[in-house]
């Protein structure tokens, strides 16, 4: 048993994900109160080189051919074994396509409590989780003696979890990874896109408030009048009203335009995490309590359908 804070590093095709550094930053906040070290846990195959800029006291490296690419089964087996042996104070996972496939399963398998959607820790080892689409925060003591935690971005900047020195690396034994029920066949690249929204300076973003496919034309007309590009939140993409290449958010693209003009978007955390690098966010929403107004510089509380054509008309008159 130890007071160490373990961070399960997420990486995909040779690239360490930002959430890993966010978690390292969280672990550094937590470790003084816990009185242990920050340990980066890296699973992979011939992937030791990925451990070069982790702001950790130590790296534990688990190497196995079955860990070359992420699959839930192999990660669960390897981590269940490690956590059982070491019993650290906490193990942090991303609340992501990788971490969320593992953390809940391990909670049931090992009988360890799980804190989901943690955004930050307090200096006296409390967690603060974000739920209900960002509308509610829940705070509590980190369960003892060993807690599993999944983390969402927003509480720490990834840069706080980067370091110029590379921490010492120790290899940790990997159990037999046999009879795996989940295997990776291949990766499928994103469909090629006509525009790259991550590079556009002016984005007109539409959310569920746009109501139907026909109304996308209203956004198109506005974008044309002002010289911007249309993008959207997930519900719009899932309906097939715009192509996946226009998706902004956790499962889509991170964007950093000069101006992000959002209409009918509530500002759910999975959307917001991808737009915080924008120069200026302007939001149009009928709900005065929509979380998007908390991160927007300017807001308009109005029915977008009352506004959009008038605005398009005025823009057209200008040019």
């Amino acid at each position: 048993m130890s007071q160490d804070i373990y961070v399960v590093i997420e990486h995909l095709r040779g690239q360490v994900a930002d959430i890993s550094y966010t978690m390292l930053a969280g672990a550094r906040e937590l470790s003084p109160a816990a009185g242990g070290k920050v340990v980066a846990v890296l699973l992979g195959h011939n992937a030791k080189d990925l451990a070069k800029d982790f702001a950790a006291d130590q790296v534990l490296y688990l190497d196995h051919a079955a860990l070359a690419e992420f699959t839930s089964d192999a990660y669960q087996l390897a981590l269940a074994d490690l956590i059982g042996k070491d019993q650290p104070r906490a193990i942090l996972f991303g609340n992501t396509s990788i971490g969320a496939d593992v953390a809940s399963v391990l909670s049931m398998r090992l009988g360890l409590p799980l804190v989901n959607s943690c955004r930050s820790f307090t200096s006296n080892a409390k967690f603060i989780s974000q739920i209900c689409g960002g509308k509610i925060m829940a705070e509590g003591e980190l369960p003892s003696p060993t807690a599993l935690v999944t983390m969402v971005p927003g509480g720490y900047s990834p840069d706080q979890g980067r370091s110029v020195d590379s921490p010492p690396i120790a290899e940790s034994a990997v159990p037999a990874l046999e009879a795996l029920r989940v295997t990776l066949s291949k990766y499928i690249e994103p469909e090629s896109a006509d525009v790259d929204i991550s590079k556009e300076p002016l984005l007109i973003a539409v959310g569920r408030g746009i109501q139907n496919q026909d109304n996308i034309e209203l956004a198109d007309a506005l974008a044309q009048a002002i010289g911007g590009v249309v993008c959207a939140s997930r519900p719009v993409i899932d309906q097939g009203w715009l192509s996946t290449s226009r998706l902004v958010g956790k499962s889509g693209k991170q964007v950093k335009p000069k101006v992000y003009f959002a209409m009918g978007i509530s500002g759910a955390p999975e959307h917001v995490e991808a737009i915080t690098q924008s120069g200026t966010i302007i939001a149009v929403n009928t709900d005065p309590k929509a979380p998007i107004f908390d991160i927007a510089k300017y807001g308009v509380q109005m029915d977008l359908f009352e506004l959009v054509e008038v605005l398009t008309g005025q823009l057209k008159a200008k040019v």
Partner: protein
Amino acid sequence: MNIVVLIKLVPDLVEELTIDSGGAGLDLTFARWIINEFDDHALEQGILLKERHGGTVTVVAPDLEGADDVLFTAAAKDADRLIKVKGDFTMANNHALARAFSAIIKDLQADLILTGVQAHNDLDGSAGPLLAECLQLPYVGYVSGVAVNDGKSTIRKEYPGGLLAEMEVALPTVLGIQAAEQPPRYVAVSKVRQAMKTSSIEELDASDLNPDGAAEIGRMFQPEAAAHAEMIEGSPEEVSAKLVGLFKELGVL
């Protein structure tokens, strides 16, 4: 093929959320319970697979206000069997839900168990992976495509930026659905009414609502934003004029 769809009901975020007098939970006295939106995608994926491969779709939901509506709507979409799990689920966490549902699903001989990848009030993990472990089945989440061949499933798992992983998963399995291959179908109210007449809901008792595995919550609160948007007011014309000015100022016009 036996497909089971697990549905979780969640408070509607469109309604005002309030904290209860204890300060550590939501006041759910007047909550409007709706289907978790990703569970709706799981149901759609289940129906699509039934259309493709035959078999049955069984929908399981906890006994909360609104469960009957959700179940009959599923029947109107062609689900075959409706099960309502009796018990006090108002404050039940996902560990309790998973244990209770696993006891029931164990007997359903499912080949495929589909549920939403997450729900907005998942504080102790998500129902899908917790259930998978209770049943000792594999789990893959963030799934947006499922095919079934020769006793195994081929799934598409989403990673950020539109990257997909194609994975093979042995059956039976639990999958956390992010998006169905097509948007959840719409059913007319008249079809739901008809389903109320022609189908019935089986009620089964939850054997065990054991919540172990969650952290204790000391306090809940509404986040105080570091800042709030400067609101632009006026008629649509006035607001538009101000926005045009702002676009110029910001150098995009």
